[in-house]
């Protein structure tokens, strides 16, 4: 599907989607937090979409409002690409997103990485532990307000 087809197809299926600007590289869509899992199931299981390959999962710190997760999806059948944004609530205390690790098993590791470095809690993840850092590490280093005076060189 082309970009416009994709956009109109998704709009007809799900309500409350916000699409990014026309100029972006790939079609970008922001999904409300509570609709994430349904939306992902739709993307993966719909015959016309067949987004079966999640090639990237990125956690972003939208300082100072909220944290976000960016999913890059591709269909190995049709080769169209979709970028899905989802945002958490308040950056200080409401930082959970539903997991997609059962839909896309590759997200299992990526979500652990995001939890480790950005502190996003993925609800329903079967094994949410720190991946890179030690278990007793304090804080999440990729956040914008993370301070470590001993080890960080700030320009």
């Amino acid at each position, binding site marked *: 599907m082309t970009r416009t087809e994709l956009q109109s197809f998704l709009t007809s299926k799900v309500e409350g989607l916000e699409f990014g600007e026309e100029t*972006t590289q790939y079609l970008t869509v922001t999904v409300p937090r509570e609709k994430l899992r349904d939306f992902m199931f739709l993307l993966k299981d719909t015959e016309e979409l067949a987004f079966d390959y*999640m*090639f990237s999962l990125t956690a*972003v710190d939208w300082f100072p409002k909220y944290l976000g997760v960016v999913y890059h999806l591709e269909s190995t059948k049709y*080769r169209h690409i979709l970028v899905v944004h989802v945002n958490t609530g308040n950056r200080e205390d409401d930082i959970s997103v539903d997991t997609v690790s059962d839909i*896309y098993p590759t997200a299992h*590791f990526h979500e652990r990485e995001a939890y480790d470095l950005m502190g996003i809690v993925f609800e329903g993840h079967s094994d949410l532990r720190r991946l890179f850092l030690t278990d007793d590490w304090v804080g999440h*280093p990729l956040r914008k307000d993370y301070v470590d005076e001993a080890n*960080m060189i700030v320009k």
Partner: protein
Amino acid sequence: MTTTDVNTNLKTQEYLINMGPQHPAAHGVLRLILTVDGEIIHKVDPDLGYIHRSIEKMCERDTYKQIVHLTDRLDYLSSHINNEAVCLAVENALGIEVPDRVKYIRTIMAELTRLASHQLWWGVMGMDIGALTAFMYAFRDREMINDIMEETVGARLTMNYNIPGGLMFDIHPGFQKKVKDFIKHFRKALPEYNTLLSDNIIFKKRLQGIGYISKEDAIAYGVSGPSARGSGISCDVRKIHPYSAYDKVEFNEILIEGGDSYDRYMVRMKEMEESMNIIDQLIDNIPEGDFQVKTPALIKLPKGEYYQKVETARGELGVFIISDGKKSPYRFKFRSPGFSNLSILDKISRGHKIADLVAIMSSLDFVIPDIDR
């Protein structure tokens, strides 16, 4: 006897083995916590971070030209391709069209890097299976590539040849002849590789039927590169989303349907031939022209998100830049092939023996700094 018909009714004690962080088969500092019953693996739990250098965090304070130099240290065997990924992302974001000469040289260099990486992988694979001589064969040939790199770039491994907008400097006058000499030599050396390992009955027995990845699993776990093509998935970024000069050359995407370790092995062996074909097509036709275009001293990307895929020796490397219009990116993410490939390790090595785990890890071709970043 296959590993599946072991009498599971026997009451035996499971125990934990720490494989790594210092282990010869980890090729770096990967730590696997194995739950084993005798020699049979029940669970593999990778524990990462022993060589984590926070490159993504460092990117957030550096300028785009500085970031290129950090990427050498990701997958140090594909350093040129990593550089290229960042450069392409920045160039696309700025709308810069680089000269054809740059594209051709970048492609040749990338394929040389891929050859060198596959050679090293082949040698190490042999060593993991127990054939020590393979390592020396591989290094004999890899040395020639490193010499070519050294002559043109000045460095052998972490090359830093790409900059946003082109290349650091032009190729050495003897570059073409040396590359052609190497290709001529390696076309004779590659059959030696096959004689030593690929056709060896012990080697085949060790790999065939070991670490089977089904097509569906490979896609679901995000496996890419030769590891996925061994399961018959067409995922070559060079074909699907061509960059640099890959749309100007003809080459085959190697696909083998089997999905076990030996198929992954054969994909890489055949990919080496394809790389040589690509170089053959380009090396005599490098167009005249500039080797870089002028870019501003301090690059500032327009606000937005940019993603660039490239095919490294291990699979699909993604560079994801979120820019807020300043001199440094707001968020810089590397989608490293090794990280996704590692996630399937637990699934495919259950029920196999410790010796098989080593073979599987070798056939997935991990580079630990690529996983840890």
